[in-house]
């Protein structure tokens, strides 16, 4: 297994705006039958906003997808559909990193001839500065890995307060950069694919304002950006195609319309007229459009499907009575109508019903790229709480509830974000649990307040529709974050089941010490099954993304790293 990344937990798992959000890998190279040509203007239609273009703050899939057009990172994902896209390849660096000292020291060498948009060469100091910025309190949203892993990271306050810099990042010369870590990190070569490892020239750093106009090292630079409205990218003349094996840089211009109505995005792409012929959607199509697209062979040809490593599940607050009784939780796991939940997201096109925590792409079986392309859902581990067609088994649930002393039913509260998708899913949970005699009250929370509410054990209720995408393919940024009882925090908590099992905690530590990624992966697979027996969460969907592209767009495929959405760097127009 190679290191990967992703990062869409925030908007993604709950489908805040569009029906689907984060997804995973698979070979969805549908409309790849024509070769893209250089030139023209590519339009991208998005129903959501781009959160934080600043590489230090970019932690949402769509931003990372767009960011790849703007800046280069030490390593990155291969520009390929399916499992192949999960592969880490060199980008700024000449290789995927050279570990030493038991993976405590990582050395990268920069390629020659990589330039910023003003023509100056990208140096190791720019990369170091870019990483140091992520320590600044003013630029908070990025991933935590630099702070967690770099030696001395816990005390460093960022370059604005501490201009001396972080000693554990060394730049012996302009093209060499050395990271000294406080622990062995086998995945570090994957971690440096995150945007936070992109170069930032210190003299161009405008602090918080850098978000509006990051300095480009990729094929495009920002021409104009108005948040929630439009981002216009034009060709970066200093970009040298020969240094870049990942980005094709075909269109002359990329115009990204933001914050459109999701239904309008679908309809414009279905119509595919005028400029919309040269357009692609950034997000998957909504449930309401599925019927039209699936029934029309010409439209179906323009639908690009990509698999993701995202799992959606219902978290059960194991600390609340009577949910502290495992039988009650198991009853919920039996009762849940996974198929109804999937229908709210568009039906089978939105992905496969989940049978366990880890999607096939992450489970031990799928750990080798060779088998990846053809992983059928059947390859996944067995569901401990099976039901016919995933529609739930209310009788079994009732029996379990009776056994636990709740034959007369119980009442639970479900937290959902106040969005169309959130409501639809909430109602599906409500209806399916009602069949087992469980009354669910829906507590709508304004989407902006949603994470701070459910991330606070004091404020969260009994149930929450949740989900997780690891930062790169592999369970190392999944199970340890979600099920380690020691990581339950009073605010910003990710373990929303508040699952606290010393046995599981100990096992997590053991796996973290395993050096071989493949062995670790299969160990994680077993642990996932162990956790499932306690039913702290009920997985229901392994996401897939179905994205519409305009008739004149070529080179489209869904990319695992971008939860199954299009890989923008490969897109071009047919003529």
């Amino acid at each position, binding site marked *: 297994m190679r290191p990967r990344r992703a990062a869409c937990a925030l908007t993604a798992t709950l489908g805040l705006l569009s029906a689907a959000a984060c997804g995973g890998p698979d070979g969805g190279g549908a409309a790849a039958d024509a070769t893209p040509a250089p030139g023209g203007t590519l339009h991208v239609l998005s129903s959501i906003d781009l959160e934080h273009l600043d590489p230090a703050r970019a932690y949402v899939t769509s931003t990372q997808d767009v960011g790849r057009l703007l800046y280069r990172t030490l390593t990155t994902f291969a520009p390929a559909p399916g499992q192949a896209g999960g592969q880490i390849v060199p980008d700024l660096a000449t290789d995927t990193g050279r570990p030493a000292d038991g993976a405590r020291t990582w050395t990268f060498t920069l390629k020659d001839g990589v330039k910023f948009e003003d023509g100056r060469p990208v140096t190791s100091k720019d990369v170091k500065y870019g990483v140091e910025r992520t320590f600044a309190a003013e630029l*908070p949203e990025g991933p935590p890995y630099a702070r967690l892993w770099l030696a001395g990271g816990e005390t460093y306050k960022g370059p604005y307060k501490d201009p001396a810099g972080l000693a554990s990042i060394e730049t012996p010369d302009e093209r060499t950069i050395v990271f000294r870590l406080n622990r062995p990190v086998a995945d570090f070569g994957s971690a440096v694919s995150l945007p936070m490892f992109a170069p930032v020239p210190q003299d161009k750093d405008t602090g918080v304002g850098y978000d509006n106009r990051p300095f480009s090292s990729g094929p495009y630079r920002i021409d104009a950006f108005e948040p929630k409205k439009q981002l216009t990218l034009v060709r970066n003349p200093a970009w040298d195609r020969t240094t870049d094996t990942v980005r094709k840089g075909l269109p002359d211009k990329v115009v990204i319309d933001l914050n459109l109505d999701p239904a309008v995005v679908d309809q414009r792409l279905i119509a595919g007229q005028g400029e919309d012929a040269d357009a692609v959607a950034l997000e998957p199509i909504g449930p309401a459009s599925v019927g039209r697209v699936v029934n029309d062979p010409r439209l179906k040809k323009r639908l690009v499907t990509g698999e993701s490593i995202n799992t959606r599940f219902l978290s059960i607050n194991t600390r609340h009575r009577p949910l502290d009784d495992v039988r009650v939780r198991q009853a919920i796991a039996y009762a849940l109508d996974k198929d109804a939940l999937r229908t709210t997201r568009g039906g089978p096109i939105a992905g496969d019903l989940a049978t366990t925590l880890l999607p096939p792409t992450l489970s031990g079986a799928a750990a080798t790229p060779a088998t990846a392309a053809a992983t059928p859902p059947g390859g996944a581990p067995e569901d401990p709480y099976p039901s016919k067609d995933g529609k739930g088994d209310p009788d079994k649930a009732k029996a379990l509830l009776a056994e636990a002393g709740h034959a007369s039913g119980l009442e639970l509260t479900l937290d959902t974000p106040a969005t169309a998708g959130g409501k639809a899913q909430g109602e599906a949970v409500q209806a399916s649990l009602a069949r087992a005699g469980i009354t669910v009250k829906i507590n709508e929370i304004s989407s902006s307040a949603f994470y701070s509410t459910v991330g606070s054990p004091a404020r969260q209720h009994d149930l929450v529709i949740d989900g997780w995408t690891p930062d790169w393919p592999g369970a190392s940024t999944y199970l340890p974050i979600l099920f380690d009882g020691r990581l339950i925090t009073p605010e910003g908590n990710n373990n929303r089941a508040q699952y606290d099992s010393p046995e599981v905690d100990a096992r997590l530590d053991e796996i973290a010490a395993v050096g071989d990624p493949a062995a670790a992966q299969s160990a994680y697979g077993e642990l996932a099954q162990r956790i499932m027996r306690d039913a702290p969460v009920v997985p229901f969907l392994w996401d897939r993304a179905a994205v519409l592209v305009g008739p004149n767009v070529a080179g489209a495929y869904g990319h695992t790293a971008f939860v199954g959405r299009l890989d923008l760097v490969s897109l071009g127009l047919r003529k």
Partner: protein
Amino acid sequence: MILYLLRRLAVTALILLVICAATFAIFYLMPADPAQGACGKACSPERLAGIRATLGLDRSPFAQFGDYLGGILSGRTYGTGAQAVPCPFPCLGFSFQTNRPVWEMLTARLPVSVSIAAGAAVLWLAVGVAAGVVSALRRGSLWDRAAMTAALGGVSLPVYFTALVLQYLLVVRLNVLPYPTAVPLTEDPAGWAQSMVMPWITLAMLYAGVYARVTRSEMLESLGQNYVRTARAKGLAEVTVVRRHALRPALMPIVTIFGMDLGALLGGALITESVFGLPGVGKLAADAIAGADQPVILGVTLVAACFVVLANLVVDLVYAVLDPRVRAVA
């Protein structure tokens, strides 16, 4: 007169201050914590505190309100040192979600809202007032009944219903118009008009109904006035009687509601802009509310209120110009 204007402006400022304070207070009660939102997934308490300090959220509500007011008058700076974010006058706050001063966001969105409001206003005034005048002149006729039924229908149609039916018919089914996009008038007048047609019709259907009804009843009122009888007794042509003696007084109340309506619309047609996905002030407000971008909500609320209050002032002044009875003593 100058003194009067100053006094009115002072009252206006006071009203805005109260609106500002009320909005501020409500956001204080909101559960969403902007610092938490900015801190992200892995947020340590220290980082949270740092963000709070930068955003000024660690100060007392009153101090924050004071900061805000100060910013409007003289601009302000968020954070300190190298990371200072300038927010020049008039600083209506700074959106940390989009990294823009609210004022800049508003001014960027205003042209769209103005386009929508102005075009719709022309349309509804033309249609509504004309229909109302004809109805009043042919009171009880078939035309009158038809027009008034249509007007009542227009008044009863929810905006989003009209908007979506229009979009379904004109765009999805008949394909005669493109989906509305924000095209600046200066760049592509035809595209601008194409994008604006549906919002104009949507709003005009609602307002033309209102205006037709008001015009009709005002016209009936003024047609019953003794001075209209005098005008007829003078032997004036009927057209002159209607235009000069009946319509002019009837327009006075219309000026009032027009000012208010236009003022409210300039502050953003929340639903219309949302349905058509046009990035005006209303859409900005809707998005800001969804994202709990408090500075933006506060800014939009203030600016929208400002438009209404200023529209009130303008209406009063226009009244003074149009009505000699008010003008004479002013």
